[in-house]
C-alpha cells in the first residue's frame, strides 16, 4: 500500500507490547471480584438460596441475590436479580463477591439454590405456530408490500418456492465483557467493555436514578465487540455496578467464555420462506419473503432480514414479513451484519437457483435485475457502484471462464465451484461531537467520546484532523473512550466513521480558521496584518502565500495561546435526506469439495466494494477482510446450539463453537472502488458490515457449483456435502 493515507494504527505499538490496557485490567486499590451463579433451568423460579457453605470459604465477602438486591429503575434495560423468576438457562440468580477471582468462583460454586422448574418453550420448531409480528425489524417496518406479489407469482413464467435456515451465532469478541465500578462520593466511575460509552452512561444513570453528569464511563481499549458490547451488555454491566454499591467497594465482574453464550446476545437463527417469480429472461416479477426468528420471553428483537429482498433488485411486486417466536432462551441482538447477513444468504442463494433454472450466468442474472433506484423507499440512490463492483470483482476473479454446469471444474480428486453474491448495507449515522485542539507545544489533540473496537477509529480520527491542519500524524494525539470527552457515536452497524467524520472535520476547520486569525492578529507574529485568505496551514506552520513568511504552530501557541486553543463541533444527520444511501459490493468465492469426505475448503474470496470515501486504505482492507471472515464463519463454521429439551447451550466453549482459524483462510483479493457521494456528510458510507453480507451466499453458491447439491441451511458442514456416487 503506497497510498499516503495508509497510516499504520496509531496505537499499534501499545498493542504489540502489551501496554494497551483493556477494561478488566484497570488497577484500582482494594478491588474485589465477583462470580455469577447461573440457573440450570430455562423457566421457573428460585425458591431458596442457601449461601452458608459459601460464606465459610476463605475470601468470601458478600452475596447478592434477588432477596437482597436493591430495586433498580426498570428503564430501558432488562435487569438481573430483580425477582425470583428464571427466564432462560444461564440467567444469573446470585452473585458472590470475594477477595480474589478464584475465591469468588469457588464460593459461587458452593451456593445452593433450589428451583421450581416450569414447562419451558425451548424448541423453536414446536412453537413456529405461535409466531407474532414484532413492532419493528431492526430499524425498518416489520412488513412491506409493493404491487401484488401473489398475483405476479401465479402468472410468473418461472417461479421458485424455497426455504432457507440460518443458525444462531454468538459474537465472541476475544476480550470477554467486564465491568469495574467505583462509587466515589460525587462520581460513579465505570470501566467497562462498551461499544458506546455515552449510551452506556445513559443506561447506568437510568437504572440507578442518577444524573448523567454523576456517571463517568471509560473504555480506553476495546477487544472487539461485533454487537455484544452494545445494549446486550447493559444487564451484566448494571449488575456489576450494583455489586459495588452492595458492598461499598470497587468490584470487578468479568464474564467467563461460557457466560458469553447466554448473557450478551446472539444472532438469531432464521427460517426464511422465499418465493421468486421471473419472466423467461430472468427479470424478477415477484419476491415474497416471510422470515421467522426466535426472541426471548422478556424482550423483543428482530433482525431486519428482509432488507436486501426489499431493495437489492428491481422488482415491481415485493412482499416481506418478519415474525418472532417467544422462547425461554437468551435474548438475541444485532451481530455483525445483522439482518443483511442471514437475509442475503437466502436471497443470493435463490438468485443462484433462479440462474440455474434458467441456465443463465448468475452474474448476468443480477445485471438484468439491477435496481436503478430504491423501489422500497421510492428514492434515488445517493450513489450506487454495484455494477462497477460486479465488473471489477468478476474480472479479478476470472469469472468469465466459469462453466455453467456444476461439477465441471476439478482439482485432482476435489471438485471446484465458483459462486458469487451481491452485497449491500444501509448507511447509518448519528449525531456526534468532537473537538480538535492545539496544545501549547504545538501538538494537536483530537477528542471524541467514541470507541475503537479494532476498526481503526483512533487512527482515522487523527488522520482527519492532520489532513485539514496539515500537520504530521505523529504530532496528533487522539483521546477516545471516555464520557468526559465530547459525545461521540456508537461503534457498530458501520455507524461510527460516518458520524464522527463531519464533526471532526468541522472542528478542525474551525481551529484552522482560528489559527490563521491568530497568526494575522498576534502583535508578535511575523504574519501580522496579512490578509487571512492569503494564509494557509502547511506542515505545522501558518504560511503566507504572498511572501516567504511563516509562523510555526508551536511558536504561535507558546506565545499567543499558552493554554492551548480548542475548537468544538457538533453535527447531526439530516433526517429528511431525499436519497437512499447504501454501500454496495460483490463477492466471488471458490471452494474445493472432497466428494467422498464432504470436506469444503474455501480457496479464494474476491470482493469489490463501493462504499464512499475511504479514509485509510490499509485499515479499510483489514476491515473488509475481517468482515469476510465473519461471513466465512456464518457459512461454514458457526452454530450456537441450544439443547431442545433443557434450553441449555451445548458446547459453550471455543473448542466446540467453531470459528474460522488461520488454517481455514482462503486467499483474499479486495478491491475498493473510488466513489464520491455528494449526498453524504464527509462522503462516508461505513464499511464494517459490508464484508460479512453476501459472503455466506457466495460460498453456498460455490458449493452448489462444485457439487450440484443445493444446501439451504447454514452453517454448511461436512455431512451436507457428501455427494452420493
Amino acid at each position, binding site marked *: 500500500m503506497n497510498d499516503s493515507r495508509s497510516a499504520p494504527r496509531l496505537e499499534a505499538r501499545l498493542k504489540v*507490547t502489551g501496554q494497551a490496557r483493556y477494561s478488566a485490567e484497570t488497577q484500582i486499590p482494594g478491588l474485589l471480584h465477583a462470580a455469577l451463579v447461573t440457573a440450570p433451568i430455562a423457566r421457573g423460579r428460585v425458591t431458596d438460596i442457601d449461601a452458608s457453605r459459601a460464606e465459610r470459604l476463605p475470601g468470601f465477602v458478600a452475596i447478592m441475590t434477588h432477596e437482597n438486591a436493591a430495586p433498580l429503575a426498570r428503564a430501558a434495560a432488562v435487569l438481573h436479580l430483580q425477582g425470583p423468576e428464571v427466564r432462560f438457562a444461564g440467567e444469573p440468580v446470585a452473585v458472590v463477591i470475594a477477595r*480474589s477471582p478464584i475465591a469468588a468462583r469457588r464460593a459461587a460454586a458452593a451456593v445452593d439454590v433450589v428451583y421450581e422448574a416450569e414447562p419451558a418453550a425451548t424448541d423453536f420448531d414446536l412453537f413456529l405456530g405461535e409466531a407474532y409480528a414484532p413492532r419493528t425489524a431492526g430499524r425498518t417496518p416489520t412488513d412491506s408490500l409493493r404491487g401484488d406479489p401473489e398475483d405476479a407469482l401465479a402468472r410468473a413464467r418461472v417461479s421458485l418456492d424455497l426455504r432457507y435456515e440460518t443458525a444462531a451465532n454468538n459474537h465472541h469478541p*476475544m476480550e470477554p465483557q467486564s465491568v469495574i465500578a467505583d462509587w466515589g462520593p460525587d462520581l460513579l466511575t465505570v470501566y467497562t467493555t462498551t461499544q458506546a460509552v455515552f449510551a452506556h452512561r445513559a443506561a447506568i444513570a437510568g437504572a440507578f436514578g442518577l444524573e448523567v453528569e454523576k456517571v463517568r464511563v471509560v473504555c480506553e481499549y476495546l*477487544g472487539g465487540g461485533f454487537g455484544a458490547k452494545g445494549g446486550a451488555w447493559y444487564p451484566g454491566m448494571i449488575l456489576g455496578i450494583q455489586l459495588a454499591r452492595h458492598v461499598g467497594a470497587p468490584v470487578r465482574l*468479568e464474564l467467563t467464555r461460557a457466560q458469553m453464550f447466554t448473557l450478551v446476545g446472539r444472532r438469531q437463527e432464521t427460517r426464511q420462506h422465499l418465493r421468486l417469480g421471473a419472466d423467461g429472461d430472468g427479470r424478477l416479477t415477484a419476491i415474497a419473503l416471510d422470515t421467522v426468528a426466535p426472541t426471548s420471553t422478556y424482550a423483543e428483537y428482530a433482525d431486519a432480514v428482509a432488507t436486501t429482498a426489499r431493495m437489492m433488485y428491481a422488482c415491481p411486486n415485493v412482499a416481506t414479513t418478519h415474525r418472532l417466536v417467544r422462547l425461554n432462551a437468551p435474548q438475541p441482538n444485532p451481530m455483525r451484519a445483522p439482518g443483511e447477513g442471514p437475509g442475503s444468504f437466502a436471497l443470493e442463494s435463490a438468485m443462484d437457483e433462479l440462474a440455474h433454472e434458467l441456465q443463465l450466468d448468475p452474474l448476468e442474472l443480477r445485471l438484468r435485475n439491477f435496481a436503478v433506484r430504491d423501489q422500497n423507499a421510492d428514492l434515488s440512490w445517493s450513489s450506487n457502484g454495484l455494477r462497477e463492483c460486479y465488473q471489477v470483482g468478476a474480472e479479478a476473479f476470472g469469472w468469465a471462464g466459469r462453466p455453467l454446469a456444476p461439477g465441471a471444474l476439478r482439482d485432482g480428486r476435489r471438485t471446484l465451484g465458483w459462486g458469487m453474491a451481491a452485497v449491500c448495507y444501509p448507511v447509518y449515522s448519528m449525531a456526534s461531537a468532537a473537538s480538535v485542539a492545539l496544545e501549547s507545544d504545538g501538538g494537536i489533540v483530537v477528542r471524541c467520546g467514541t470507541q475503537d473496537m479494532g476498526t481503526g477509529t483512533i487512527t482515522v480520527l487523527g488522520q482527519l484532523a492532520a489532513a485539514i491542519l496539515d500537520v504530521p500524524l505523529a504530532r496528533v494525539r487522539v483521546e477516545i473512550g471516555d464520557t468526559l470527552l465530547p459525545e461521540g457515536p456508537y461503534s457498530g452497524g458501520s455507524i461510527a466513521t460516518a458520524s464522527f467524520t463531519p464533526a471532526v472535520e468541522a472542528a478542525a476547520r474551525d481551529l484552522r480558521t482560528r489559527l490563521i486569525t491568530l497568526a494575522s492578529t498576534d502583535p508578535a507574529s511575523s504574519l501580522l496584518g496579512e490578509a487571512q485568505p492569503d494564509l494557509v496551514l502547511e506542515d505545522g506552520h501558518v504560511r503566507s502565500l504572498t511572501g516567504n513568511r511563516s509562523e510555526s504552530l508551536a511558536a504561535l501557541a507558546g506565545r499567543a495561546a499558552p493554554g492551548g486553543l480548542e475548537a468544538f463541533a457538533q453535527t447531526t444527520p439530516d433526517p429528511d435526506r431525499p436519497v437512499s444511501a447504501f454501500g454496495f459490493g460483490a463477492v466471488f468465492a471458490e471452494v474445493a469439495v472432497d466428494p467422498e469426505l464432504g470436506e469444503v475448503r474455501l480457496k479464494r474470496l474476491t470482493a469489490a466494494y463501493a462504499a464512499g470515501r475511504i479514509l485509510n486504505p490499509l485499515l479499510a482492507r483489514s476491515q473488509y477482510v475481517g468482515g469476510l471472515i465473519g461471513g466465512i464463519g456464518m457459512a461454514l463454521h458457526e452454530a450456537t446450539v441450544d439443547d431442545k429439551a433443557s434450553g441449555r447451550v451445548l458446547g459453550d466453549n471455543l473448542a466446540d463453537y467453531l470459528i474460522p482459524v488461520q488454517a481455514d483462510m482462503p486467499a483474499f483479493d479486495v478491491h475498493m472502488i473510488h466513489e464520491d457521494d455528494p449526498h453524504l456528510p464527509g462522503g462516508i458510507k461505513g464499511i464494517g458490515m459490508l464484508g460479512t453480507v453476501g459472503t455466506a451466499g457466495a460460498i453456498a453458491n460455490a458449493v452448489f457449483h462444485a457439487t450440484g447439491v443445493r444446501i439451504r441451511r447454514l452453517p454448511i458442514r461436512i455431512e451436507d456435502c457428501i455427494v452420493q456416487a
Partner: protein
Amino acid sequence: MTDPSREPRALTLRVNGVDHSLAAEPCATLLDVLRDGLGLTGTKKGCDMGACGACTVLVDDRRINACLTLAAMQEGREIVTIEGLADGEDLHPMQQAFIAHDALQCGYCTPGQILSAVGLLAEGRAVDLAQVAEQMSGNLCRCGAHPNILAAIAEVAGLRA
C-alpha cells in the same frame, strides 16, 4: 474450613528476566498470577480453558497457554511475556512486522499471536506457509486479521507467500 491446599504459598517466578516473589494459592494459574498478581496484563484472558491462545507465553522458549498451567509448576523456568519481548525501546522483529502488516485490529489476541509466532520460529516448525497457518490455528482471532498475521510471520520467517 481451612484447607491447606488453598492456603497461599510463597513462590518465585522468573518473568522477563526478573525474579518475582509472591504468595499464590497452589491452584492459581500462571495466567491469573501474571495478570492479577504481577500486573503483567499484556497476557490476555480469552477463554481460561486453553481454547483460544490469547494467553500464550514462552516458557524456556516453548509456547504454552498460561491458563492451562499452574504458576507453582513454573518456578525455576524462564517465562517471557509480551512485555519482555522487545529489547528496551527496540521492538522484536515480529512486533515490527505485526505493525507493518496491520496484523492486529482490536489487539486482544495480538500478544498471544506474536508470542506463538516467535515460539513457532524458535521451534523450527515454520517450514512453509501452510505449516505456519496450521501451527497458528490455536491462536484465535475474531476481528479477522489472519491474512495479515500470516504475512507478518512470513516476512520474519523469510517465507514467500
